[in-house]
């Protein structure tokens, strides 16, 4: 009995010593950046991919000597895909770990939950993939002072795809099959429909499903006999892959459009490569892009992780580089100074395109439209919307 108590005390002492040491030494010669991501739970794939990109970027910066001689240290926590955890972790990162900025979370809901904490503690939070429209603005239209993002919004994608269908593909009769269980699906659908109809197209039918559905035969059988020439699927690859497969099985061979939710290597497994013809979707980046920044990133990524990077990897990488760039230009190592530096970012040249930050802390950047042929990316083009 005595022995165990003694042992427990010793262990506690050692732990206290170790943590005490690292904290005291890290403050002086390291720059701490928080990473608050969905590493487990429903949206774990987005969080994990983003963090892979972030770690690649930070390693690269550290190998090159860090920021002004100071190495960057990531303080990484898992919010388990829960908004409440995202809030408490943001608080912990800012008040206990004293980080200079926080990256993440990946999804809009969780990211929004950290913004009040950021404003209160004057530490910027930056998301690489929170695409909901109202992420960086208050309900009254004013900007959330300490929130930034480096990806375009859902409405931007919906509008871009509607224009692409009308102008580039010359299609005027669309069916929309939307994921009604996510803000993402609903937001995209609304913007697509508005733009499509405003510019002379007709929406022939609008159907809905919820995330987790696997049977779309009834919906597809219903629309099969209608007169339409394009399908828009605002949703994620899990269901979109199955919709595409079942549609092609039923003999529906019109072009199918989607957004960045299509971007996953799983899409081809779900739909089968024969079904993936005439598929167009908007995305943040394409591996076909010959820009050296993109090609270098792909090479480095493949070397480290032995796989092709996806858009979340690219956004994570850009996010980390964007934050590093901000810290380098900041007048001092305080949250306020970093925020000012981020606000003044112009022509940041990232993997997902070059962009500047506008007054609402959104990037102004071009969208990439990717065409799939036999399940592989066949071509990509940049489309800017003005």
């Amino acid at each position, binding site marked *: 009995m005595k022995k165990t108590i003694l042992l427990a005390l010793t262990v506690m002492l050692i732990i206290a010593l170790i943590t005490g040491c690292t904290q005291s030494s890290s403050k002086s010669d390291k720059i701490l950046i928080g990473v608050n991501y969905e590493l*487990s*739970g*429903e949206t*774990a*794939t987005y969080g994990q991919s983003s963090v892979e990109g972030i770690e690649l970027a930070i390693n690269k910066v550290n190998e090159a000597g860090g920021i002004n001689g100071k190495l960057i240290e990531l303080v990484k926590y898992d919010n388990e895909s829960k908004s409440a955890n995202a809030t408490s972790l943001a608080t912990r990162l800012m008040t206990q770990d004293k980080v200079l900025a926080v990256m993440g979370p990946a999804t809009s809901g969780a990211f929004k939950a950290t913004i009040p904490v950021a404003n209160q503690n004057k530490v910027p939070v930056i998301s690489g993939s929170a695409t909901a429209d109202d992420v960086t603005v208050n309900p009254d239209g004013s900007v959330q002072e300490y929130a930034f993002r480096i990806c375009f919004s859902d409405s931007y994608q919906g509008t871009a795809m509607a224009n692409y269908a009308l102008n580039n593909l010359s299609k005027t009769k669309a069916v929309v099959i939307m994921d*009604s269980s996510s803000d993402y699906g609903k937001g995209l659908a609304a913007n697509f429909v508005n733009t499509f109809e405003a510019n002379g197209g007709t929406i022939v039918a609008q*159907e*809905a*499903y*919820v995330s*987790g559905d*696997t*049977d779309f*035969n*009834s*919906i597809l*059988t*219903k629309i*099969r*006999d209608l007169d339409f020439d394009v399908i828009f699927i605002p949703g994620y690859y*899990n269901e979109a*892959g*199955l919709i595409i*497969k079942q549609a092609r*099985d*039923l*003999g529906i061979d019109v072009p199918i459009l989607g957004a960045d939710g299509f971007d996953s290597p*799983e899409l081809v*497994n*779900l739909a*089968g490569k024969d079904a993936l013809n005439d598929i167009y979707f908007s995305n943040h980046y394409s591996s076909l892009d010959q820009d050296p920044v993109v090609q270098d990133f792909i090479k480095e990524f493949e070397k480290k992780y032995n796989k092709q990077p996806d858009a979340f990897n690219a956004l994570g990488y850009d996010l980390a580089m964007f934050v590093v760039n901000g810290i380098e230009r900041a007048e001092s190592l305080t949250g306020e100074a970093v925020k000012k530096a981020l606000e003044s970012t112009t022509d940041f040249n990232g993997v997902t395109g070059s962009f500047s930050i506008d007054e609402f802390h959104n990037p102004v950047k071009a969208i990439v439209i990717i065409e799939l042929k036999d399940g592989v990316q066949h071509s990509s083009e940049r489309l800017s919307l003005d």
Partner: protein
Amino acid sequence: MDQLIQQIINGISLGSIYALIALGYTMVYGIIKLINFAHGDIYMLGAYIGYFCMTTLKLGFLPSLFIAIILCMIVGICIEKIAYKPLRNATRIAVLITAIGVSLFLQYGTMFFVGANVRTYPPLTGLMAKRFKYGHTLISMHQIIIVITTIVLMTALQVIVKNTRIGKAMRAVSLDKDAAQLMGINVDSTISFTFALGSALAGAAGVLVGIYYNSINPLMGTMPGLKAFVAAVLGGIGIIPGAMMGGYLIGIIEVFVSGYGSSMYRDAVVFAILILILILKPSGIMGKNIGEKV
């Protein structure tokens, strides 16, 4: 007309899956009056076992189906022995809560081992991937496989329940557990056998869904589980032919709601049916009204 036939075909394929799962619910309820909420997750395990047989072990459809059925039987028996048997004399609500616990354990346990990602079944080739076209109506080989497998399994179940000694024991235990025990029936092994049968059907349904929709994930059991539960209640819980009928009815209703009404209301209609049947005829379509003895 074409569309009607096509929708009926869609409905029957979907209904077969619900029927297979509903059978397990109904048998377990019939014998120990427990809504086994972990049942949908056994179906999920069946899908994963089939997946690993087909991808890692590179087995064909039939061997994979067979292995999934056997392993799911074992899992079903284990769950009964570990989680439900110690609570045989506890209140029904305690067992029900345990069932929910087992369900969550299976879901997140699976997620821990295989990850939260969606997995895709390898595409079937040759004859298994064929599609038949009659005019404007399409039937895929997958749909035929699903319906045939379901019919074979249901016939086997009927034979077991009606014509074997263990089937007789099952019926006796479900009628009156204590009396059955007095007549020399081993109640514990009969209950285990019931769980094994139900789990076998659920495991088979899992593999069939895997080849039909080729997308599986650790939480896939929840929704079909609930809908199969509705199907079991609709047909009359505890009644085996009722579960089959309920399964097919729910499948066809679901398809018709999204095919002729709005896909938005599909799930709402299914659960509205549950509410209606509980208000109007709680014993289900095939159930007899028996006054509860006090």
